[in-house]
């Protein structure tokens, strides 16, 4: 699915959080959304996910303006994984993943064979089959995040949006999650804190600063030493590691930068 964002702005309580963003994400791409805290990543993601109505501008799925769509219609196109969405519940992992079937369910109908097959596949894809009957509260942070991803996959979405999915995960789970994402055929837009992960697993990056999109393109084109200094305030550079993957080498806080 192609996701198009046209001069999108979003304000809350008089403050403009996202300002005039243009972006295009191509079918099957895995795109990373990066930027410092408070740069408007989460808000942009929520606008793209149809959860917030843009103040001005347009979001298009495959060319169709989604303004006015009901939640169900959006949910059949795109899945959204909130940042560390938690529940005080005894839901089991399989129940959580089955939530992904909500947009396809009739009001009065219980899960059918298709629902079960899809949930089953999503569980296995996320490596959660063995944990299917575990309760939510008994899961570790990494397991919870995988469950959310499986839930998103169970939506059979054309696109998946994720807000900082690697937060609070240990390094192994971060890598596993990113590998899972990169392996899907669907269009993925994921906001990330970790620039190395973004550089390594994303086809393209969108760099935000103070609500505006300051750069788009391949990781090595976006994360130049100048932008790393100006936007993130660090003295760093992107370079291939011995295995040939891009990695960020930090030398410290930049001498002069924001904050």
């Amino acid at each position, binding site marked *: 699915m192609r996701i198009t964002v046209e001069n999108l702005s979003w304000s809350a309580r008089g403050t403009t959080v996202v300002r005039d963003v243009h972006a295009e994400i191509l079918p099957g791409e895995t795109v990373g959304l990066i930027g410092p805290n408070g740069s408007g990543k989460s808000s942009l993601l929520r606008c793209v996910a149809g959860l917030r109505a843009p103040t001005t501008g347009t979001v298009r799925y495959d060319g169709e303006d989604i303004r006015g769509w009901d939640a169900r219609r959006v949910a059949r196109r795109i899945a959204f994984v*909130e940042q560390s969405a938690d529940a*005080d519940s005894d839901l089991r992992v399989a129940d959580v993943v089955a939530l992904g079937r909500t947009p396809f369910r009739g009001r009065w109908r219980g899960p059918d064979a298709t629902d079960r097959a899809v949930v089953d596949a999503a569980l296995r894809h996320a490596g959660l089959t063995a944990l299917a009957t575990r309760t939510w509260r008994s899961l570790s942070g990494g397991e919870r995040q995988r469950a959310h991803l499986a839930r998103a996959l169970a939506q059979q979405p054309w696109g998946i949006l994720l807000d900082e999915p690697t937060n609070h995960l240990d390094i192994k789970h971060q890598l596993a999650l990113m590998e899972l994402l990169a392996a899907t055929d669907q269009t993925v837009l994921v906001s990330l804190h970790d620039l190395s992960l973004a550089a390594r697993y994303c086809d393209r990056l969108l760099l935000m600063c103070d609500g505006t999109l300051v750069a788009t393109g391949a990781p090595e084109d976006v994360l130049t030493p100048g932008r790393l200094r100006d936007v993130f305030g660090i003295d760093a550079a992107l370079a291939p590691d011995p295995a040939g*993957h891009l990695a960020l080498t930090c030398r410290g806080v930049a001498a002069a930068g924001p904050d």
Partner: protein
Amino acid sequence: MPVSRAPAGSGRDLLGVLHPSARALPGPQPVTPPPVATGGRLSRTALGLLGTAALLLSVAASVRIGSADVGYGELGRALGGRLGLAVEPLPPLLDSLIWDLRLPRVLLAALVGAALAVCGAVLQAVTRNALAEPYLLGVSSGASTGAVVVVVLGIGAGSLGVTGGAFTGALLSFGLLLILLRRGGLDSLRIVLTGVIVGEFFAAVTALILMASGDADTTRAITHWLLGSMASARWDVVVIGAVTTVVGLAVTWACAGALDGFAFGADTAASLGVGVRATRATLLVVTALMTSVAVASVGAIGFVGLIVPHGVRFLVGPTHRVLLPFTALAGAVFLVWADALARIAFTPREVPVGVFTALLGVPLFLLILRKRGEL
């Protein structure tokens, strides 16, 4: 640079099922038996039959219990006569005791129990708070105030009726609660404290109305009613209760999927295709309606909405499609027995049934708080 290495052991066929292009395909068979149906919890069919049987038996058994013991023979004669069977009619007063008082009372207890328990389950999901319940959130107090305004001051007695007054009061207290909770998170202690404040406010308004215009006898009658008593149950109330409970159950059950979605908050629910505002509004109005019909007919009975859903969740799990019907069943059984106990525990005196539900509910409430580390 991107790595498109699939995790070991997954394979494209698996991804195929998850891909949107697979949606149109006729239902593929699960590769392994669905794990959802097992998991140490009792079989739902068995539990459903058990629950229905328990409800029917409870109703039948508790119809016999009261200040006057009614035998099955007499019960048969009272029912048989109305079904046109050739049975020897009962003396009119005994017939009236069974048909006009006891039967409607037991049925009303079942209906109100089901409604209040379902309200609790729904509010717990919508507010994402294990302690939400009409009584604790002050909704029952609001409904009581509305009912007292109609009964004592006579405002809206013609147009609204007691139920309408209770409904208005319930909506008002809900509104006040939501306004007070607008800012800041919905952590459970905060919701409960706010609910207590709202409840206290409406209780004070009720007391003020009673003070200002009720004579001592009215005050006593209303105080008794506010504690929750089934004594005024009649067929007309049962009909209203049945309609409300059935409609309420149908609406909430239709929202079962949405209620599950609320588990991870409003944004996740919306991203799953739940119309959050509309669903929330519908559910709050329906719970307010069920609560107010309950309050208008039998007074403010607390803690049913707390005790029952927690117990049922323990048995059948938190998925609302299953949880709601079982909660309704269990709520009905619970209140039928609580009321039977209220009838006979201190004969010839009758205890307000709300006293019993509170005696059972308060310790459970504390237990939940403690378990959650908030006490």
